[in-house]
């Protein structure tokens, strides 16, 4: 059994700088097509390291606890949560928005960066897409169990019912959510699966056992790598990317509509759609960094997921974090500019009211901590960026908490003001959702290609190709050799 690919180089190679005109390599260590195949397939073919089993044991237990708590919740009712007048939208909606936000990075990396020809996406898109799917699964659970009678959640769908004789309410943003999150989840799933087909074929062709070969044969649908297939495949991939890019924006936009179409101060503001999208990208990238930093270490993928990839993601975290900060500022300004006393009160109350601690955790983690990424050593130090990414994750959870709870706890009717306290079940279930997420992610690492092998190879070939063309343009003699009948 192959252990470590011969070309593996454990040293961190700084490929973040490129001299203008000379693109630095995206992957390090003089990789060949075979070594890339080797390096990725090893993750699934070798026995998993001990840390995998420890993590898997822990997270699957947590997931089981989560599922048991859901069963208990359905049996007992949502009263076990801390949701109480006036804060009826509490942790469940906060957790929903938190997970959906995280679920934005994957499709963003696969679709929007694809459209912008950001080739560095190829090493990280598969893992990010997987993370997206699992985060959307965690997100989808919350509104499902929050509807009270969870077994009737299918009433949300517009199906001709002989019992109800009625249709869903299409003017409700919560129904838009059903469509947006449903479309997003299913489209991301097929996008992810379609991207995996060629790599599953690689897994199939490397399988030693007939059973393994049969399973991967079925999964890859008999992919041969035919050029005629590739052509249609690439077209379909491009179309999906072009569809998924606005889809990504629309999902968190619709989530923001849940809040913003109401008249509640602090919710009803027009910047919400782009601000939620920026926040989602921000939290999504932070989660990708949180997952990839240990993963590349455990599976020895440092040559494929290089500092350049991490550096780029940190730059996006910096940019979106600052955008989120700009949105906080704009909201504050407009609360004053609108001269609306309710709006002004809400924002002052957020910063200095009973939930001041949540507000300042949010600002510290979301706006201040990513500013550290202005420094290059922060962007290229794996430990430092991992810590910051966790801070961002915490901050983005608190952002949703601040938006949801501060506005609801101080609504128009002072007589109904209150202070929200979560219960033990709120906390355990949020913790448990991480168990589901991690369990699925670890299983993904064990059984599915964690890096888009064929895309990495395609970029290797393209950069080689570009180097040829450029060398030709620059009149360098040795550029001609391999090019053959190029023109």
């Amino acid at each position, binding site marked *: 059994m192959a252990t470590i690919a011969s070309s593996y180089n454990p040293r961190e190679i700084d490929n973040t700088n490129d001299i203008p*005109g000379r693109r630095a390599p995206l992957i390090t260590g003089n990789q060949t097509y075979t070594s890339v195949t080797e390096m990725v397939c090893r993750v699934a073919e070798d026995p998993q390291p001990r840390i995998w089993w420890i993590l898997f044991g822990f997270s699957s237990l947590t997931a089981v606890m989560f599922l048991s708590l859901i069963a208990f919740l359905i049996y007992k009712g949502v009263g076990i949560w801390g949701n109480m007048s006036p804060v009826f939208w509490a942790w469940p909606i906060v957790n929903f928005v938190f997970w959906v936000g995280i679920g934005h990075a994957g499709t963003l990396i696969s679709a929007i960066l694809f459209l912008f020809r950001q080739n560095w996406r190829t090493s990280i898109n598969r893992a990010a897409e997987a993370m997206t799917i699992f985060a959307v699964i965690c997100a989808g659970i919350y509104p499902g169990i929050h509807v009270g009678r969870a077994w009737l959640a299918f009433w949300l769908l517009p199906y001709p019912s002989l019992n109800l004789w009625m249709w869903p309410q299409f003017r409700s943003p919560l129904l838009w959510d059903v469509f947006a999150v449903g479309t997003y989840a299913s489209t991301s799933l097929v996008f992810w699966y379609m991207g995996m087909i060629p790599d599953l074929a690689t897994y199939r062709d490397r399988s030693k056992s007939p059973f393994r070969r049969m399973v991967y044969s079925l999964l890859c649908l008999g992919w041969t790598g035919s050029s005629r297939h590739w052509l249609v495949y690439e077209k379909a991939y491009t179309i999906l990317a072009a569809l998924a890019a606005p889809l990504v924006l629309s999902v968190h936009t619709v989530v923001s*509509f849940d809040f913003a179409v109401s008249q509640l101060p602090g919710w009803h*503001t027009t910047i919400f759609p782009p601000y939620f999208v920026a926040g989602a990208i921000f939290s999504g990238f932070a989660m990708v960094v949180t997952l990839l930093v240990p993963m590349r270490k455990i599976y020895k993928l440092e040559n494929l997921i290089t500092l350049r990839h991490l550096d780029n993601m940190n730059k996006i975290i910096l*940019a979106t974090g600052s*955008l989120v900060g700009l949105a906080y500022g704009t909201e504050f300004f407009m609360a004053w500019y609108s001269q609306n006393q309710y709006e002004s009160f809400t924002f002052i109350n957020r910063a200095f009211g009973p939930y001041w601690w949540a507000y300042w955790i949010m600002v510290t983690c979301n706006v201040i901590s990513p500013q550290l990424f202005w420094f290059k050593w922060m962007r290229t130090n794996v430990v430092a960026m991992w810590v910051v990414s966790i801070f961002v994750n915490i901050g983005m959870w608190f952002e949703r908490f601040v938006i949801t709870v501060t506005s609801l706890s101080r609504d128009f009717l002072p007589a109904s003001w209150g202070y929200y306290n979560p219960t033990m079940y709120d906390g355990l279930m949020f913790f448990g959702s991480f168990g589901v997420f991690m369990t699925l992610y670890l299983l993904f690492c064990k059984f599915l290609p964690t890096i888009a092998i064929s895309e990495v190879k395609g970029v290797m070939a393209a950069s080689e190709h*570009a180097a040829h063309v450029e060398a030709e343009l*620059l009149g360098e003699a040795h550029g001609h050799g391999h090019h053959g009948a190029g023109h």
Partner: protein
Amino acid sequence: MTSPIKQSHIHFAITVSNNSMSLQYDKETIVLPSQWKNKSPILFAAGLALLVTGAVFALFTQGADKSDGVAAFKFVTHSYLANFMYVMTIALGALFFILVQFVARAGWSTSIRRIAELIMSTIPFLAVLFLPIIVLLYANSDALYEWNVRENVHSSVIKAKIDVGYLTKNYFTLRAALYFGLWALMGAWFYSQSRKQDESGDIEHSLLRQKWSGPCIMIFALSASFAAFDWVMSIDADWFSTIFGVYLFAAGMMAFFATMILINAGLQKAGKLQNLVSVEHFHDMGKFMFGFIMFWSYIAFSQLLLYWYGNIPEETYWFAVRLKDGWQYLSYGLIPLHFAIPFLGTMSRHVRRNRPGLVFWAIWVLVVHWLDMTFLIMPNAGPLSLIPLAGHLLGGLGMLFIFFAFFLVRATNVPLVPMRDPRLPESLTYANPIL
């Protein structure tokens, strides 16, 4: 798909040493066409004449219509602001484009970047065009900004903003000076670095710009957003929308790419930039234009939906004004004209790779951008009346002429391609994937 080398027959000789590059090329292909040179005074005069004619025409027709000099003057000032914002948003689009090229270390855009730099360099001139508005404020007129004369203000909301000193002529002017100062400074520095590189070919100039583009984008985002609040949103100082800055940004970016397509196509038609700007660049600019048509629609729809759904009078009246007195035709018209038709028109790859097709849609986009600015600003001046609107249209044309005259002033005796930019070879050889 043909190999990229076939698409651009390059006849340049480039030699590369350690960290610099030199290139022998036909100098004639990267300068302004001779028939364009020295046209800026004529264009400027024609633009000014159109602007004045339009204003006078509007003043008289609107006045005759209403027998009301106040309304007519109000119309003219609003028309000027709308036409000014029409070109200002394009110039700001250019500034943002330049900044983002460096923050993303983009290579594809190098050969079209100089044109954008020249558009961006017109910002100091545009600051001069903003002066009439400042003069208007100091002449104590409330024709454009109702908050300028406190005695005539009835709304307590506006009074509060005046009393705090935010919406006052002094502070407004100070802020405008700050915005223009920041933009002009950023523009001038990025342009000067680019020109220095023309001389030395030193990669250091690229690295410096890469380093500073990040902070500059932050400054740009903040200043452009607040400029939109100040200049356009405050003509109706009761109304507010947090997304407003993003709205103008989206509209400006879309119009900027249309402008880029037109200028590049025009220069190529005049025999310039041959082989330097290829169908790939047009394809990419077309994609960006398409993208920002969608982005504008997204932002405009978000603003509309949230206020429509919330149904709070202090927010919806802004739309109510735009949905009566004749303006409803323009407002509803923007849905097909600014979204559906150009969206479908520029969706196909074949259109984006077809120069005449792309030029058609670029003109379309510039026209609807003018309609959009009219939609944002003109309904505040009163009900729609078509005849004075012709004066407004003349003014818009005049402003476009003046803007182009400024561009020509900046472009004269300047190479139109940063020939020694180290990323130029990448820009000359890249090919779009199959989208």
